């Protein structure tokens, strides 16, 4: 019998192909739980559904560190099924009308469908209210989905060699990196809490409550960030393949400068490529951790990603591997934020 292939890339493919929009993380949570089984000292699911895995026990000179990668993804929720079986929907998180037309969706109950659109007037900009999901139903009675049913976008994992593409690299690539780091790291004196958080895409909600429960001394989000390396794209000094990005700020929080320095020093020590990130629009779990209790020094390790929130999000293979190395290095020794 062949040994189960549990390499980083296989785990990544499993995670990105599992549906799990915000609020419907029960399936992806089980997948992640299965991957980390046997590598942790304690695993809990909290009141909102965050998966919280502890590794290591606090010893003299150590820190309680929370690492958070969100396991939810953007998706759609049905608001109405009409007499002919067409399902109207609402976005869960930031879904752009531009990436919807012709898209295929997979509901949590297994139903599949395609996205169609009303006829537009000339030059009319499409709004999500103009779209509907066609599940092949011919009537309301015949429809396998109803109000409140949730779907994610459906798109297979694509290996382009140096680059990898999938529908939910945001944030499953980070989840895979954190799973891999969790397995490899020797916590030493530190007490590490690996959190796979819920409902990030609708407002960082899971990380807020997880951080309160964990009550860490240092927080580190792991998430994707945008890039400025595509034709006529946004102006941003982050590019695919230039290494893990160390966040200085985004629109939700300013990373603690001591955490930034800790990350930069580690990247230099390991001679890993890295880049500094200033993200003009976007937020991460770092915000939720930073503001809990009386405040927590927090930062974010970002994986550069093109076409975020489209069904084809692209990351660089080396960036992913280097992110694992950086994370393992950061977490495996005593931390001084000086």
């Amino acid at each position, binding site marked *: 019998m062949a040994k189960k292939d549990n390499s980083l890339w296989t785990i990544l493919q499993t995670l990105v192909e599992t549906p799990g929009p*915000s*609020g*419907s993380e*029960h*399936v992806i*949570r*089980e997948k992640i739980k299965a991957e980390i089984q046997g590598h942790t000292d304690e695993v809990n*699911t*909290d*009141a*909102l*559904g*965050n998966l919280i895995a502890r590794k290591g026990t606090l010893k003299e000179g150590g820190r309680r560190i929370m690492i958070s990668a969100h396991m939810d993804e953007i998706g759609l*929720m*049905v*608001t*109405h099924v*009409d*007499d002919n079986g067409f399902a*109207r929907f*609402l976005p*869960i998180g930031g879904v752009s009308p531009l990436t919807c037309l012709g898209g295929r969706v997979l509901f*949590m*109950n297994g139903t599949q469908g395609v996205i169609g659109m009303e006829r537009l007037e000339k030059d009319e900009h499409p709004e999500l*209210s103009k779209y509907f999901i066609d599940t092949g139903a011919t009537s309301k009675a015949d429809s396998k989905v109803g*109000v*409140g049913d949730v779907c994610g976008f459906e798109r297979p994992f694509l290996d382009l060699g140096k680059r990898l593409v999938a529908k939910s690299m945001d944030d499953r690539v980070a989840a895979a990196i954190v799973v891999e780091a969790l397995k490899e790291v020797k916590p030493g004196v530190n007490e590490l809490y690996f959190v796979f958080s819920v*409902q990030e895409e*609708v407002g960082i*909600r*899971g990380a*807020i*409550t*997880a951080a*309160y*429960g964990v009550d860490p001394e240092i927080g580190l989000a792991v998430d994707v960030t945008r890039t400025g390396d595509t034709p006529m794209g946004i102006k941003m000094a982050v590019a695919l393949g230039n290494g893990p990005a160390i966040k200085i700020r985004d629109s939700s929080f300013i990373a603690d400068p001591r955490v930034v320095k800790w990350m930069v020093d580690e990247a230099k020590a390991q001679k890993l490529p890295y880049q500094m990130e200033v993200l003009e629009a976007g937020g991460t779990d770092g915000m939720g951790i930073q503001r809990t209790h009386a405040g927590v020094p927090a930062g974010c390790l970002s994986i550069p990603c093109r076409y975020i929130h489209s069904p084809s999000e692209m990351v660089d293979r080396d960036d992913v591997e280097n992110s694992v190395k950086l994370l393992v290095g950061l977490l495996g020794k005593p931390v001084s934020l000086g």
Partner: protein
Amino acid sequence: MAKHDNSTKFNPQMGDAELALLTRLCNAVSVSGDEQEVRAIVTEELRDFADFTKVDAMGNVLVRREGTAESRVRVMIAAHMDEVGFMIVKDEGDGVLEFRVIGGVDPRQLVGKPVTIGRDHVPGVIGAKAIHLTTPEERKQVLKVDQLRIDIGPGSDPKVKVGDRGTFATKLAVLGPSIRSKALDNRLGVFNLIQLVKHAPENVDLLAAFTVQEELGLRGAKIAAFAFDPEIGIAMDSTPANDLPHYDGFENTSHNTKLGDGPAIYIMDRGTIGDQRLIKWLIESAEAEKIPWQFRQPGMGGTDAGEIHKTRAGVPSVSVSVPQRYLHSAAGLIRIEDELNTLKLIHSALIRLDKSILNHQEKK
């Protein structure tokens, strides 16, 4: 001393006493930030029914009623006491008052409406130029709030001062099987929560939060939930019913809710994704008791659950609303049967509540 009813067969009615209480609640002026009038009614009504009552730093009324059963679930139910309305910002003399709106009020709803100002309920009107004097062009424009004035009549009442709140002056009226009133959002919730404290089942510790400043951003609920530290959160509120027929021949796909179809259970709004375990619990309770229910269409808007569920290490939460036409206007309209069914639903759900509900359902 009034007697608490712990019977498992609570059958809500809208009798004379209930209607009198709802009328007092709805006719009160209780705009966000000055909820004194409703707070006084709540405190008085529940004086003999609570194990603990506290008015907190922001003005929330926190009422705890402990059950007697061995194993009990700590359930916080929130109903906000505040309503949208106006605030006087400038006294221009001779009874003319400049104002701003508090909370979400459509400026198109303002012109020509009688209003009630301040704790002394001074009557006034939001006036506008008579049609005789307007041009066809003027009649196409929506008047902005800063162009409008509240007029309490020449010989201005000295009791009205800058900072006073006001509301539309509409008094509650029963229209056959319906009720018309200005502040059904959310005096229905307050009314229902009062009833639930009086009829609380013994298997729960009912943590009743009559909250302030919901209309300005769920501000009261945030600190109420922190103080109560509950295991489960429920927000009781009122939600729009945009259920009048469409006349263009196409199906109405965005009614939000429909009058007469029963309590509206939330799946998702702007602030909360309802906990799937609690949604299931409510639906099963409704089905078992043959109470009609409907989903509120996932959409915008929010309730106190938006803050409750993010409290401390997280609180599984859900919202239930009474469907209402014409929310946040001078006169909303509800079906009495929807209101009573909402109360009945929450009560019968509480009776069925057990800690095992909080086990994570790993498969739907």
